[in-house]
Structure formats: structure tokens, C-alpha cells
């Protein structure tokens, strides 16, 4: 297990290194003069030159990469020309909101998908199964940004069930920042009103973010369960009189989880990517919106940082998923 982990981490380092080169090159070959872009067309020549110098834009790409990577290793990802602050500062401001969103929708994704998948498998070929499968197909076929728009309008505007924009109602005083996660912070501060308000704000974006993956997962789980239902070991367990619900919850669920978890890893990780659109629509002050803005304004350091961080999180999630799979599947855990 330790060897497995360390190998996985080593691979991660390698991938991150490759990724850093890749994103660096990508962000540097974007045409246009980022310094000019940053200061606007009316800035004076000296101001522009000053910024170019500061951003090392006059050096060659490998040199620029050297500056960037050595900085990055020291935790300095450069300055955003957009917000005019250190990118690290921006990121530390926006990342918690994204993480909170991704965590909540990750939880929704996991819990609801398992629930639906098990439900559909258990009531296979009944109307419950049909309903879940039908919803799943439709849900998968509708792009998540469309879903977000529809949710926003239906629940936010027409029904007015929940507030829809930002992380907290305008009048609420945010709890003191400890973790940066609004819901956790408000619990730490013991501010239940803020907690519920934050919850109401996060629920729609989180659901629209989770929905696609969730339904996909439910479907995979259902078919994994029904595939395994025909396995000899289930027949054997039934033959020994193991109660039905035990078979369902233990003998079937665990092996069926393996394919789900591996896809779920990808889905959880892609939450990061899809958050780009959902945050935009729900005015969620997260990293993805920051990244999108950076891309539209060629904020080089910001782009690199965002991709790097998302890549990192992606890897971290994948490693976590690998660990979970290893926990489920002894072959991976104990095998070479």
C-alpha cells in the first residue's frame, strides 16, 4: 500500500511537472502583448515598458519558464495584471469558494448517485427504475450550463425558493474567515443564520454542477449492480441463505462500487472544470470565474496558476480516488 502510494505520488509529481511546462507554453504563446492588455490602450509607453520588465516579458520563453517555476516552487505565482495583486493572494481568496462548491456538489454527487443507483438496481425493471433511468438519460443529455440556467430561472426567479447569487445574502455579515469555507466558518462561529443562508446559496449551483455526473454515476452503479447480480458468487451467497438486504448492501454493493468509483474520480475532478460555467451563471465568487476572466483578459500568471491549481486538485482527487479504489479492491491494494 505504501509502495503503491509513493509510486502514485511520484507519478503525480512527474505529471505536474509536465503539466507546468504545457500550461506555461500555452499561456505564453497566446498572441498579444499582455502588458499592454493589462494597462489598457491609453497607458503611457513608460508604464507599459515598466510592466513588461516586471513580468520578464522581454526574456526568452525558457528563461521566463525558469523564473516562473522557481517562483512557483517558492509559492510565488507572480502578479495578476487584472486584479493587480499577487496571484497567490487572488487564488487564496477565490479557491475556498470553489472548493466549498466542489465539496458540496461532490457530496451530493456521491450520496445521491449511490442512492439512485442502488434504488434503481433494487427495483430493477419497475417504474422506479424506469423513472431513474429516464431522468438519467435526459440529465446526461442536457449540458450543465443549460441546467444551471434553467435552475436559476425556475427556482430563483419564478419560484423564489432560494437565493441564487453569490455565497451569502447581501445583508448577512460573513463569519470570520477560518477555513474560507462559508458553511464551515459559520458553524465555527456558531452563526446558524449564516450557515443556513450559505447553505441556501450553495444548494442550486452545487446541484446543477453535480447533476450530470450524478446521473451518469447512478447509471453505472445500476448496471454494475445488475451485472454482478448474475455473478456466480451472488448465486452462491443466495444459496447459503444470506439475507437479501445483506446481499444487496454488502455482497453486491462493494464490488459494484469499483467501476463507479473510478468514473467518479473523473467526474469529481471534472467538477472543477464545469464549475467554470456554473460559477459564471450563479455569480459564485470562485476560482473558475477568476480563471475565465483571466483567460478572456490574457492574464498570464493568473491563467497559469489556475490551470496549475486545477491540475493539482485534479491529481489530488485522482489519488484519493485511487486510494478509495484500493480500499475497495484488494487486488490493487495488496497486489504489486
Amino acid at each position, binding site marked *: 500500500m505504501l509502495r503503491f502510494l509513493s509510486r502514485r505520488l511520484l507519478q503525480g509529481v512527474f505529471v505536474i511537472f509536465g503539466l507546468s511546462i504545457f500550461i506555461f507554453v500555452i499561456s505564453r504563446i497566446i498572441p498579444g502583448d499582455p502588458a499592454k492588455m493589462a494597462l489598457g490602450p491609453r497607458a503611457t509607453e513608460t508604464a507599459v515598458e515598466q510592466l513588461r520588465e516586471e513580468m520578464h516579458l522581454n526574456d526568452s520563453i525558457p528563461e521566463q519558464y525558469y523564473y516562473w517555476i522557481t517562483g512557483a516552487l517558492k509559492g510565488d505565482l507572480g502578479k495578476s495584471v487584472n486584479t493587480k495583486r499577487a496571484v497567490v493572494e487572488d487564488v487564496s481568496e477565490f479557491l475556498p469558494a470553489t472548493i466549498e462548491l466542489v465539496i458540496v456538489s461532490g457530496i451530493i454527487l456521491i450520496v445521491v448517485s449511490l442512492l439512485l443507483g442502488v434504488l434503481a438496481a433494487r427495483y430493477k425493471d419497475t417504474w422506479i427504475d424506469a423513472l431513474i433511468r429516464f431522468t438519467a438519460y435526459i440529465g446526461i443529455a442536457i449540458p450543465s450550463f443549460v441546467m444551471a440556467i434553467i435552475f436559476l430561472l425556475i427556482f430563483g426567479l419564478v419560484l423564489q425558493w432560494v437565493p441564487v447569487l453569490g455565497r451569502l445574502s447581501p445583508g448577512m455579515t460573513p463569519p470570520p474567515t477560518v477555513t474560507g469555507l462559508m458553511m464551515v466558518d459559520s458553524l465555527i462561529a456558531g452563526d446558524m443564520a449564516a450557515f443556513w443562508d450559505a447553505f441556501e446559496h450553495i444548494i442550486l449551483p452545487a446541484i446543477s454542477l453535480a447533476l450530470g455526473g450524478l446521473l451518469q454515476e447512478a447509471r453505472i452503479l445500476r448496471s454494475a449492480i445488475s451485472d454482478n447480480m448474475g455473478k456466480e458468487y451472488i448465486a452462491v451467497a443466495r444459496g447459503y*441463505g444470506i439475507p437479501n438486504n*445483506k446481499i444487496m448492501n454488502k455482497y453486491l454493493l462493494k464490488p459494484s462500487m469499483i467501476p463507479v468509483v473510478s468514473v467518479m474520480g473523473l467526474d469529481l475532478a471534472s467538477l472543477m472544470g464545469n464549475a467554470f460555467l456554473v460559477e459564471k451563471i450563479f455569480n459564485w465568487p470562485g476560482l473558475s470565474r477568476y480563471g475565465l476572466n483571466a483567460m478572456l483578459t490574457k492574464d498570464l500568471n493568473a491563467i497559469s496558476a489556475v490551470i496549475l491549481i486545477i491540475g493539482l486538485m485534479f491529481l489530488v482527487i485522482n489519488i484519493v480516488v485511487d486510494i478509495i479504489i484500493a480500499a475497495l479492491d*484488494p487486488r490493487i491494494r495488496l497486489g504489486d
Partner: protein
Amino acid sequence: MTNELLSIKDLEVWYKTYRGYAKVVNGVNLTVNKGEKVGVVGESGCGKTTTMKSILRMNVQSAYVNSGEILYSGENILKMNEAKLQEIRRRDIAMISQEPSAALNPVFTIGEQIRDVIRYSDTKKKFTKEEMQSKAIDAIKSVMISDPERILASYPYQLSGGMKQRICIAMGLVVPRNVLIADEPGTALDVTIQDQIHRLLHNLVEEKDMSLIMITHSLGVARELVDRIHVMYAGDVVEVAKTDDLFKKPLHPYTIGLLDCVPKLSGGGISEGIYGYVPSYINPAPGCRFASRCPKATQICREQKPSMTSVDAEHSVACFNYQ
């Protein structure tokens, strides 16, 4: 006939397939008496496993019992309610699976799986962990695996095919039963170990007054172990006889052909094999299913299904040549 413990009557099991129903088990009759060792032989795919799985109602979903009944102590298992069935599964009848590598759940340890079998064998009694562990260890030891603790803590993939097969057998033995169905328990083992296992089963029957149904495709194995043999061909039981009778005086042309194909230790070459191949189960021709391969087939064989006729007190055969 008073000690008849389990009997299968005119069982028909069909599989649903893309070409239609595969009428795999075609009216099988089989009885097991108390304390008896019964063999079921027949070549691969003739429906042995399907028939036996029907007893505990553990066939896959696509299999469906078209007709027939399975009586255990006079009660029809096929019509039994769930609770009663579970009772029988837990205490009375156990089946040792033919596919050891598929029969063990890959994500739980051997111990976990055996303990569950023990735990649910008696729902009224609460077994302690130690009790279960010691029962499990005994069972593992009985199938001649050393280091049972380590085996209990390992996962199926860590064991060889032969080990898994023995684990499956141990699982069937861990709780005493009235009927044990062993589905080709020796195939993954070499002859010397196979021999050990057969001895173990034999002893169990002798000591515990258990009944055994031994499924095999090897006539040799059946001859060594069981009292009475049912020969199956393509979903039908074609011949039933006391073991000695069968080998001395095989009646059904299929039985004769099969015996002929078995390589003999005495040498003398190998016969040409039975002409032709097993017919399709989908839309089988009416009549005897062996007719197309039978050297003695007549018109009637192709038109009607022969019924079981007693030739002797304990020897019956389903063939028009004997009617």
C-alpha cells in the same frame, strides 16, 4: 421409498436467449435417499449444474422453471415462500459451486465469507467471533489446507485455483447439512488431491448420515465414490442405476458410447468417439435427444421422447430399445 429425502420430478428449465428459449433441462427426474451418495454424470453442457441450482433456486434470472417440482421432505421447494426457502438454504441443503474462482466474492476475505455462512446458518443463535473463527478453521483444515488463519485472512485472488476449489468445499462443509450437492468438486485439482477430497466427502456421508449429490463428467470418479448414478444427456436423465450395475451392464447407447470414449489405463487405443455433436437446445427435434447420434436409432426415437422404464429393480433407462 420412505427414506426419499429429495426428489426432482419432471423438471424443465429454460434459458431465455436471443434465438428463443433454450430448453436445457428437459423433464429431469432424480431422487436422493437419506444417507445416499448419488452421482450425476454427463458431458459438459448437458444441464447438470442447471438442474442442481434449481434445487436451491439459485439459477440466474434468465433461467426459468417451466414445469416440474422439487420435493424436499415432501415439500415443493419451487413453491415455497422466501422464509422457508432461506431456512432450507441455511441449514438443510448446500451446494458447492463448480466455478471456484467465480464463486468467491473478490472483494471480501475468505474468512469474511465463511463467517457469513456460519452467522446466518442459525439466526436464533448469536455466534461469537471466536466461535465462528474456530468453525471456519476446522473447515479449512478438513480440506487439507495448512495455515488456515492466513488463508482466512486472504482474498480469493491470492489463492490458486485448487485452493479456491477447496475453500468452496470447506464453505459447504462448515455447517452440517442433510444434503450436500458437490458440483464437480475435483476439476481444478490433480488426481492425488482430488482423491483426498473424495475421501473426505465419503467420510462425511458415512459419519454424519448426510446425503451427497456428486456431479461430475468423469465416469471414473462416479464409479469410485457414489452408490447410484444418473446419466444425463442433453437435459434428460437417460439412465439410472446402481454404480456397479451401470458399469457392468450399461444400457443406454449414450452410456455405452461414453464409456467407450474414456481412455483406458489398460491401453488398447481410443474409440472413435460418439458420432456427431450435441444438438441445439433451441427448438430441439422432438423425440429422443440422442437420436441423431445414436447408432441404434429407429423412426420412433426421432418422433417420441422415450420415458424412463425400469429394466431392473434399481436400473432404469429411457430408451425405446428397452421398451
